[in-house]
Every structure is written in C-alpha cells, then in structure tokens.
C-alpha cells in the first residue's frame, strides 16, 4: 500500500474511510480502541443501572433510564464503527467476556449511594467528554462520526450529573454528606481515566502520528482538573487533594501525586468490582443465548418460506 498517501491524508487533517488503504497497525489499533470504548459504554450501564430501580424521584428515574439507554446506543454505534473496519461484534464481545480486551477501569468502582450516580455524570461523563471531543476530529472517519453523536449526549449527561450534584450539595446534611463522600471516592479514579502520564504511555506517540490522538494524557487531565475544580468550589464541596492549588502564574491547577499502583491493580482485575461487572455481562449474554438463537432460527425459516412462496 501507499503509506505516503495515507500519511499525507492524516497530516492534512483528512479522514481515512473504511475503503481507503491504511496500514495494518493503524486498522488494528483503531479496532482495539473503538472496541474497548464500546465495551466501556456497555459495562458502564451497570454502575448506574444499579440505581434505576431505587431512584429517589420519578424525574430522576426517567433521566437515569434515558442515560443508560444512551450508553447502550453508544455501544451500538461504536461496535458498528468497528465493524466498518472489518471487525465482528460477536468476536469483540467474546474478547470482552474472556478478558482479552479491557474496558475503562472507572467502571470497576462501586456505586454505593445515590450521590454516586450524580458524581458519575458530573465527573466520569465530564472526563469522557475531555477525552472524546478531540476524537471527533480524529483521522478515522467512522470513529470521528460516532464520536460526534456520542459527545452530544455525553455533555447532556455531564450537565444532568452536575445538576443532580448541585441539588444534593444544597440539600439536607445527609445529602451533603452523601455528595462529599461521592466526590471523595470518584475524584482520583476520574483523574486516572486519562491514562498514565505521558512518559509512561508507550503507544501515545504512534497514535499521535496516526491522528488518532490529538492531545497527551497529561494535557487532557490538566484540562479536566482546571474545568472541574471551580465546579466543586461552586458546589461548596472539597476536592480530596491537600496539594491542590491554583498556580497564579500559569492559571492552571497544580494537583497531588496520582496513585498509579491502584490504576494498574484495577487494570489487572483487582478493583472492587471487576469480577462482578464481568460476571454480570457474561451472565446476561449466556442467559440471552436462547433468545438470539431463536431470532436467528426464525429469520432463516422466514427466508426459506419466502423462497418457497
């Protein structure tokens, strides 16, 4: 293939479409990244889905159902985008189920109170937006288009999460305590969502050259901190980082050391909910096998009937 032409398109901020020639490594990297993104969307339904049946008002219940539905939709577009590059959804799901492909470590933390639902919307969807907005301009046409749809909905989720957090932070003492506790538990895992520091992120340089990545992990993390700390202040909540301060000279927040040991432990499977999340996913898939088989059997019977008719 003509690698120079490919690189010219990438360097000129053009889009690589499924029918275009592309290096094998590029295709493989993209499929893996899109698949892991899709896996994160569908595993991400669980921690929040955990509160749907217990949501404290009908309005909040409806918002949460709509959000979980959006996440399933994001999974669908993303698996669809991976399929345009030659992957197969069932095979990708097998990779998730067998642990050969990962999903975002953030979803291995438990949602133990209602405030966790608000914190996820505010922080986790907030961090996801920081990561994903640059992807709307990435070099892959199908991935960029999926991200445009996804980002619109994620920013809606972020606003709803912040709004839910605002109500709690201005609510009763018990609600305030719930809100602070959720921030305490979700803050550091959210910062780790951007991935290891640049000097510790072996694939970043290649992804940058391929136009899949536009900003480094540390740049995106800094943006997130700068955007989020004032929001926490507005809520009257305390960010659980004693070293956090605004550097007047740069206008950026300086924050404390990130615990990467925990990140790699959760990545390896040793987070509080890794086992439950995967187990739940695999169980749903296995318990649904007879339904999928029936749908396939019916479709082939119908096709045979049409031929006969």
């Amino acid at each position, binding site marked *: 293939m003509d690698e120079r032409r490919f690189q010219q398109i990438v360097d000129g901020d053009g889009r690589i479409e499924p029918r275009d020639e592309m290096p094998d490594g590029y295709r493989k990297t993209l499929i893996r990244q899109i698949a892991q993104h899709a896996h994160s969307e569908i595993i991400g339904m669980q921690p929040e889905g955990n509160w749907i049946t217990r949501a404290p008002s*009908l309005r909040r219940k*409806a918002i949460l*159902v*709509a959000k979980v539905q959006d996440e399933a939709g994001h999974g*669908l577009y993303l698996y669809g985008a991976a399929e345009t590059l030659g992957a197969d959804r069932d095979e990708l799901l097998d990779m998730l189920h067998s642990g050969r492909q990962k999903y975002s470590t953030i979803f291995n933390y438990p949602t133990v109170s209602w405030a966790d639902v608000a914190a996820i919307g505010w922080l986790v969807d907030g961090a996801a937006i920081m990561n994903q907005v640059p992807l709307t301009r990435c070099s892959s046409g199908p991935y960029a288009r999926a991200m445009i749809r996804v980002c619109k909905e994620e920013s809606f989720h972020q606003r709803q999460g912040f709004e839910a957090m605002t109500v709690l932070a201005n609510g009763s003492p018990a609600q305030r305590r719930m809100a602070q506790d959720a921030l305490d538990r979700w803050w550091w895992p959210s910062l780790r969502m951007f991935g290891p520091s640049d000097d510790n992120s072996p694939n970043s340089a290649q992804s940058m050259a391929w136009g899949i990545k536009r900003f480094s992990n540390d740049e995106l993390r800094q943006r997130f901190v700068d955007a989020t700390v004032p929001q926490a202040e507005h809520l009257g909540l305390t960010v659980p980082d004693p070293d956090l301060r605004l550097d007047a000279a740069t206008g950026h927040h300086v924050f404390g050391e990130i615990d990467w040991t925990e990140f790699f432990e959760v990545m390896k499977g040793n987070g509080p909910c890794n086992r439950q999340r995967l187990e739940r996913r695999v169980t*749903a898939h296995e318990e649904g096998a007879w339904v999928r088989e029936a*749908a396939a059997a*019916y479709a082939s019977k119908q096709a045979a009937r049409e031929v006969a008719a």
Partner: protein
Amino acid sequence: MVDPDVSQYCLRLGDDALVLAQRLCEWAARSPQLEEDVALMNLALDLLGQSRSLLTLAGAREGAGRDEDDLAFLRDEPDFVNAQLVELENGDFGRTMAKQLLVSAYALPLWQALCGSTDADLAAIAGKAVKEVAYHLDHARSWVVRLGDGTEESHLRMQKGLDEVWPYAFELFESDPLLDRLVARGVAADPAALQPFWRSCVEEVLAEATLSVPSTDWRPSGGRRGTHTESFGYLLAEMQHLHRSHPGVSW
C-alpha cells in the same frame, strides 16, 4: 378541579404504567442483546412518562396537594391500584415478552378510546400514549412470534411464560361501580369493550407464533382493590426506600 372518581381512575392507569416500567427497569444491562437494552429502556421510559402525567393528574383531581412523587413513593401496598398482571416478576425474556404482549394489546385500544375522553387532560395524555403503546405492541408481537416459532427451546420457554402470566390478564377487563360511573360520563373506556380487540389481536399473534391459547379458568384478581401478589412488596420496598429515608428533601 376536584373529582375523586377521575382521580382514582388516573391512579389505576398511572399505577399500571409505573409498576410495569419499574419491572422493565430491572432489565437494565441484563438483556439478551444490545438492541434490546435500547428497546427495553425505551419502553420503560415511555411508561414512566405516562405514569408521571397520570399520577400528576390523579393528584390534581384529588385536590389534596399530592404530586407524582408523593403518590409513587409515599403510598403503601394496599393503596396501589394497578392490575396484578403488571407487577408479576419478569422471569425470563420470553415471560417478559408474554406480559408485554398481553398488556400492550389491552393498552392500545384503551388509549385509542381515551383519546375521546370527556376529560380533556386525560385525552391529551392518551394522544401521546397511543403512539407509544402501538410501538410496544409491535415490539412484543415480533418477539413472541420469533420466540414461539424459533427453536424448540424457545418455543417451550415462550409457551411456559405465556401460560404463567395469562390468567392475570382478565383482571384488566373487569368492571366495577367506579368504572360504570366514569363510562357513563364519557371519561373512562369501558373495559369490556376493549376485550374483543385484545382477544383477536392476541390470538392472531399466538397463531403466527405457533403457540396455544392457554386454557385455564383460573382468574386471579384484586389489584384494583389494593390486593397484590407476594412479590409486589419487594418491588415497592426497592422503589421507595431511598425516597422515604430522607423525608421532605428535594432530589
């Protein structure tokens, strides 16, 4: 405009929608395939929207200042007047689809009739609901047919799920003095008049699905009078506990 009869009728309709939505919510992130995660949450969302409008209207016609959340979260089991069919546990996907079919084939002619209700607020709710339940019926129909006429296993499971929920459907068509008064006023739909459509629609689907019409005469009932099945207490406990743990706050 205080009107206890209309309030009670809206409560029945609202409880049906709310409790069915709550059961569908239990499917979140558990469905057989991703498309169904989207579809089932979509059904739940429609029904939740219906229940919110209906409970709000029930509160307004009651005139005691209760809003949708007061009615959803602060009533006890005997005060819920949903039909028992909607509260039945989901069981497997086949049983859930059987329940959806039986409910939706009732809800479609119900909301069609209520589009002409003399209560303008109820008619407005009906105008929106009728489009939603038409989709719910299509969705349930297509699954019941595929599962009934799919594999040997799916046929058996679908028939079993249908047999289990079937007897509870007949409560939907019962009349009582409240309904008689409201039908006479042109507010409510006459439940007996909904049954012919329900029968023919369900029988047509079951025939296409190669399933048999269950033949039991057992007709459990009582939901409209606040008598519920054992599993209903758990559903309410789960739904209400957080709201009740923090009295009087906003969310």
